[in-house]
C-alpha cells in the first residue's frame, strides 16, 4: 500500500486586482482554483500545462512561498496552511525546491560552497567541518568535483549550475523536492544529463518529486503520474502511460497532438486549437476550456465539470464523460 506523503485539497490562490484612487479590490486573478491531488512516497507527479495555467503557483504554495487563499496542504500528516511562519521554516527542511533559471537562483556573490552550505546553516545542521565535508559529498553526488567548491556561479555552464541548485536542495535530506521547470533553460544534450541525475537521485535517496514543466516529453519521461492543468484547474490526472496513451480530456488530446515529434515517419492527426488561453481574471463561465474545445456542448457553457474517475485511477473534468461514473 503506497504511503501518502502529500495531500492537497481544494487549494486556491486568487490574486486581487485593485484599481482606482482607494485601491479597492475590483476583481481577482484566479491563478489556482480548487486544485486537489495526492502524492505518494517515492513517486514523481508531473504537473503540466501552458504558461499561466497555475502550475508554478501551485508549486510555490506548497512551500508557502505564496500564501494560499484557501485549501489544505497536508504534508506528512500536518496541515502546512495552519502552522506559523517559523514552524513553516522548519518544515522546509523536508520540502526543498529546484528552480527554473540556474542563472537567477544562485547568488552570484557567493561561492558554490557557501550556496550549498546555506540550508545547513539555516537549519542549524553540523559544525563548520561537518558542513564542509557534506558540501564535498553533495558535489560528488551531483557529478561535480570537490575543487568546484571555491568557485562562483558565473564560472559554470547552465547544466552545471542546475547541478549546484540540485545539490543545495539535497543538502538537508528533504523528503519532497519541488522542481519548477528544472530543465527548460538547458540545451537538449544537457537536459538529458540532468534528467538522468534526477532519476538516479530519486532511487538513491528515496525522494518524492513534484515535477512542474511545460514540456510533455520531459514530463512523460520523469513522471509516474501526470496532472494536466488549464486555467488554474486540474483537468486530467492519471498514471503517466495511461494519460499519454488514452487521454480523455479534449484539452489533453489537443496538447499531446500539438507536440512536434522528431520522427519523419510518424503520422498523426493533429488537433489545432483556435485562439488563446482566456484570461484568468475573467475565466469563461462553465468549463474553462469550452471556448476552445472542439467538442463543446451546451452544458459546457453553464456548468463547471467536476474531476471524476472515468477509469481506475484516471480522473478527468469533462462533461463528455457524464456526471456519474
Amino acid at each position, binding site marked *: 500500500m503506497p504511503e501518502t506523503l502529500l495531500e492537497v485539497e481544494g487549494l486556491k490562490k486568487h490574486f486581487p486586482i485593485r484599481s482606482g484612487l482607494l485601491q479597492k479590490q475590483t476583481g481577482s486573478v484566479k491563478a489556482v482554483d480548487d486544485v486537489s491531488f495526492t502524492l505518494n512516497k517515492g513517486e514523481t507527479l508531473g504537473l503540466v500545462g*501552458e*504558461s499561466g495555467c497555475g502550475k508554478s503557483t501551485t508549486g510555490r504554495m506548497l512551500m508557502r512561498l505564496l500564501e494560499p487563499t484557501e485549501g489544505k496542504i497536508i504534508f506528512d500528516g500536518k496541515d502546512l496552511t495552519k502552522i506559523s511562519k517559523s514552524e513553516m521554516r522548519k518544515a522546509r527542511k523536508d520540502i526543498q525546491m529546484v528552480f527554473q533559471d540556474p542563472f537567477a537562483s544562485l547568488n552570484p556573490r557567493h561561492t558554490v560552497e557557501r550556496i550549498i552550505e546555506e540550508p545547513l546553516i539555516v537549519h542549524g545542521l553540523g559544525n563548520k567541518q561537518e558542513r564542509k565535508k557534506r558540501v564535498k559529498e553533495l558535489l560528488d553526488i551531483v557529478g561535480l568535483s570537490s575543487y568546484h567548491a571555491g568557485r562562483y556561479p558565473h564560472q559554470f*555552464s547552465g*547544466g*552545471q549550475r542546475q547541478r549546484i541548485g540540485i545539490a543545495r536542495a539535497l543538502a538537508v535530506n528533504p523528503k519532497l523536492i519541488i522542481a519548477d521547470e528544472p530543465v527548460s533553460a538547458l*540545451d*537538449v*544534450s*544537457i*537536459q*538529458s*544529463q540532468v*534528467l*538522468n541525475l534526477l*532519476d538516479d537521485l530519486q532511487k538513491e535517496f528515496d525522494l518524492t518529486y513534484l515535477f512542474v514543466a*511545460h*514540456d*510533455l*516529453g*520531459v514530463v*512523460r*519521461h*520523469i513522471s509516474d503520474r501526470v496532472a494536466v492543468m488549464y486555467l488554474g484547474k486540474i483537468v486530467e490526472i492519471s498514471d*503517466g*502511460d495511461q494519460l*499519454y496513451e488514452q487521454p480523455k480530456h479534449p484539452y489533453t488530446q*489537443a*496538447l*499531446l*497532438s*500539438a*507536440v*512536434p*515529434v*522528431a*520522427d*519523419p*515517419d*510518424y503520422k498523426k492527426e*493533429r488537433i*489545432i*486549437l483556435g485562439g*488563446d*488561453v482566456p484570461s484568468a481574471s475573467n475565466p469563461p463561465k462553465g468549463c474553462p476550456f469550452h471556448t476552445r474545445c472542439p467538442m463543446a456542448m451546451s452544458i459546457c457553457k453553464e456548468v463547471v465539470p467536476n474531476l471524476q474517475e472515468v477509469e481506475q485511477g484516471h480522473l478527468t473534468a469533462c462533461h463528455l464523460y457524464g456526471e456519474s461514473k
Partner: protein
Amino acid sequence: MDKPILEVKELKTHFLTDNGSVPAVDGIDFHLNDGEVLGIVGESGSGKSVTSLSIMQLVGQPGKIVDGEILFDGEDLVKASEKRMRQVRGGKIGMIFQEPMTSLNPVYKIGNQLVEALRIHKKMSKDAARKRAIEIMKLVGLPRAEDLMNDYPHQLSGGMRQRVMIAMAMICEPKILIADEPTTALDVTIQAQILDLMKKLNHELNTSIIMITHDLGVVSEVCDRIAVMYAGRIVEEGETKSLLRNPQHPYTKGLVESIPDVRYKKERLYSIPGNVPTPGSVKKGCPFAARCAFAFDKCSEDSPILIDLGDNHRVRCLLHEEENGAELLQTSMK
C-alpha cells in the same frame, strides 16, 4: 534540378575581442533552394543565430564577416552596400525573431509598424498600404484585423505578436523568410498554430524559409532539409527524412537519442557527456571529439572534412573515412 535562391560559401564570421578572434561561424557552406524549407539546428553557441544575422548583414560589433560569400539570386550580399542591404532586408529577405515583444516597438501601433515597410520599400500611399496591411493580417490568421491596426503590442498575446511579426516580415512578399527560433517562446498549442501558418506561407506563396531552431521535433514537422551545426560548423546535412531516420554524425545521433519522447517512455535517456566547447577553444582535430562515444586517435589530430554520402547527405566525421566506420556507428551507444 532545383535552383538555389541563396548560396552560402565558406562563410566565416568572427568576433574580434580583446582576447583574440572568436570564430562563431567557422567556414560553413549551404544553399537554399527556391520554395524549400531548410532547418538549421544546433545548441546554444553553435553559431546558428550568427549565421542568420550574417545573411542579413546584421552582425554587430565586434563581430565581422571575415571571409566567404553569401549569394542571393547571384548577388554577393557580403559585398553589398548598406543602401542595397536596406532594400534587401524586409524587401527581399524577411526575418522573424524568437521574442516578439522585444522585436516590436512598444510605443507604435501595430498598424504603423506594418505599413512602414510598405511605405519604404514599395513607396505605397497611406491608404493602399493600410489596405495591404489588413490583407496580410488576415492571411496570417489575425482576427479583427481592422481593430488590431490601432492596438499596441502589449495588448496582444504572445501568439498574436508572433503572427504580427510574421505579417511584418511577409508584407513585402520577400523571397526568403528567415525564422530564428520563432516558436521557442510560445506554448505548444500556439506553436502548432504558428508552424501550421509557416507551412501555409511556404505552400501558397512559395516563400523559401530558413528555420533556425534547437528543436528537432519542430524541424521534423516543417523542414525539407536539415543542416546540423556544432561549434561554428555544419557537421551534418541532408534531407529531413534520411537525416533523422539514419543520422550519420555521432553528435546528431546523440541529439536524437537524448530527446524524451511523448510517445513512449525510454528506460534511460542517452546523454552526451560534457558541454558544448566555447567557440575557438578547440584548436586541433574535431571539436566534438572530447564528447564523442566513437572518437579514435585520429579525431584529436585531424580536422574532418565534409564527406558526401550520396542522396544530398553530407557528414563531417572521420569515422566515415574509415573502412567500417558507418557500421560502427550503427552499434548502439551506451
